[in-house]
């Protein structure tokens, strides 16, 4: 499928999901059904989907205070004989709504990245009029990310073998100050290496005929065909219907 279609669809899906008011439980079910159906059709592994979702969950902490601080009525729950906490029902509902929206949005984003190669995504961004320079920088960063990650991992391994990673100063070779300085020097040398590396890359690009125009796209010739266009229209229509439904059922 054309990457632009997928990108636009994902954006529309996430925007309308987040426009849906709080407590629109039935609409959430429809949104998630729609997404799950797409996940099934795309045949990505469910375990990957949920693993990646879990990795991002800690942020939910930010919304927990809502449970205790939203508008009355409050319900008191006694934890211990003398200790009572007050919960706000409205706050709890808000919190659950946020958690559900987060859960569905992130899975939509995972579906997009799991089914689209990154060069295709860059191509889609170019099609959506993201400036060429920006796309070129993001593309280059992505290409060299894994090379430089290996450099960093080597540095960390080297440091670990010289045992500066332990926290007690008798084993780590130095104080907190020293550990921070070592890490700083690592960051500095990483930067210098990258700058030197980029000079070589530039020379290599020049020798392949680079004249300042960003790298040519990978699938420039492909355009959105009629079926994909109809599919996109139908998908967005469904999303809007679910959203309108959500407006009526939401609180």
């Amino acid at each position, binding site marked *: 499928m054309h990457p632009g279609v997928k990108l636009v669809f994902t954006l529309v899906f996430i925007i309308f999901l987040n426009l849906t008011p709080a407590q629109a439980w039935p609409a959430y079910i429809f949104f998630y059904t729609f997404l799950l159906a797409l996940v099934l059709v795309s045949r990505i592994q469910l375990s990957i989907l949920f693993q990646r979702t879990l990795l991002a969950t800690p942020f939910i902490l930010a919304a927990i205070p809502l449970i205790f601080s939203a508008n009355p009525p409050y319900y008191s729950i006694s934890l211990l004989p003398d200790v009572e906490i007050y919960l706000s029902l409205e706050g709890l509902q808000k919190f659950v709504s946020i958690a559900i*929206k987060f859960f569905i949005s992130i899975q939509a984003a995972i579906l997009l990245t799991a089914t689209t190669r990154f060069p295709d995504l860059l191509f889609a961004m170019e099609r959506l009029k993201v400036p060429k320079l920006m796309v*070129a920088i993001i593309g280059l960063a992505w290409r060299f990310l894994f090379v430089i990650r290996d450099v960093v991992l080597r540095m960390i391994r080297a440091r670990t073998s010289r045992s*500066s990673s332990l926290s007690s100063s008798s084993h780590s070779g130095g104080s907190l*100050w020293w*550990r921070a300085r070592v890490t700083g020097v690592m960051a500095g040398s990483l930067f210098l290496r*990258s700058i030197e590396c980029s000079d070589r890359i530039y020379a290599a690009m020049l020798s392949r005929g680079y004249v300042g125009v960003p790298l040519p796209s990978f699938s420039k010739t492909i355009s959105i065909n009629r079926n994909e266009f109809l599919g996109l229209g139908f998908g967005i229509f469904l999303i809007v219907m679910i959203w309108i439904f959500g407006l009526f059922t939401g609180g």
Partner: protein
Amino acid sequence: MSHLPFLSSKLMHIPDGFLSVLVSAIFWMISIMVLIKALRETNRLLSERQVPLMGVLAAAIFAGQMLNFTVIGGTSGHLLGAALATILLGPWPAVLIMTSVVSIQALLFQDGGILALGANIFNMAMIGVFVSQAIYTYVTSLLKKKSWVFFVSGFVAAWASIFIASLSCALQLSLSGTSPANVVVPAMAAIHALIGIGEGLITAGALVFIFAARKDLLHNDLSKTGDHKGIIIGGSLIAIVLAVLSPIASSHPDGLEWVAEQSGFLGIAQDAFYEIIPDYTMPGINDPALATIVAGIIGVVIVFVVAYGVARNEKHSKRNQISHG
């Protein structure tokens, strides 16, 4: 899990679902305007030679976020890199580099949401860079001709960039009604005041190293070209406004939501939006509980049908493969 090492700087990457669409849209617009300016300035100042440099440095900052050092029992300091990029390359290229980093984190690693990307770019790529630039310039001019000037100004700039960016992040959350300002602002501020120390130490260490190894990079024309007065004033303004606004917001019970309601801004926007469709109840399903049950049943049926279809299809294609091959 190969991507685990990348997930180090969770706290400031807001995922989708936590910001209201209105807040997200506002910060998308601000970010896009600043980005257009940054692209124009970068095009003017730098040759095409710098494109690979910016790409590789973005990758280096991304990977460099894995660099950390243990502080006390489990906690660790690590690098975000906005200040380092600003000091080495100047503010406008640094905005582009940090934007690339934040975008790749959102698009590829789900570190931060897609709808919330505008706000995340604003916090980490713009506030981080502008505040660093402003503070770095101030401190450097205060401590003229001291040999340890890079160390001190780098440390302070890096600490401030983290701290102010976290305030902005907290205010966005409370403006969206996701987290009460009197909880989230002090919490984010306290955590990032500590994280900022780690960032500051690493940045300062890196600068000292670069100063010793490649002095020319710190005195190059790259970061000195162009007039950065606007950025310096803007960065200081952002820092001052956020530093003043945060305690005010958090001392009021309902924080920013109250401010927004008082000024009638949020209310008007939302009312207008929802009044497109007047009071109307769905025929048949005006009982929310019933609607939930019906939605659940329809959902289960749809998922089942799709799963069945996929399974059948797979069987067919397998049979075809066998008969053909």
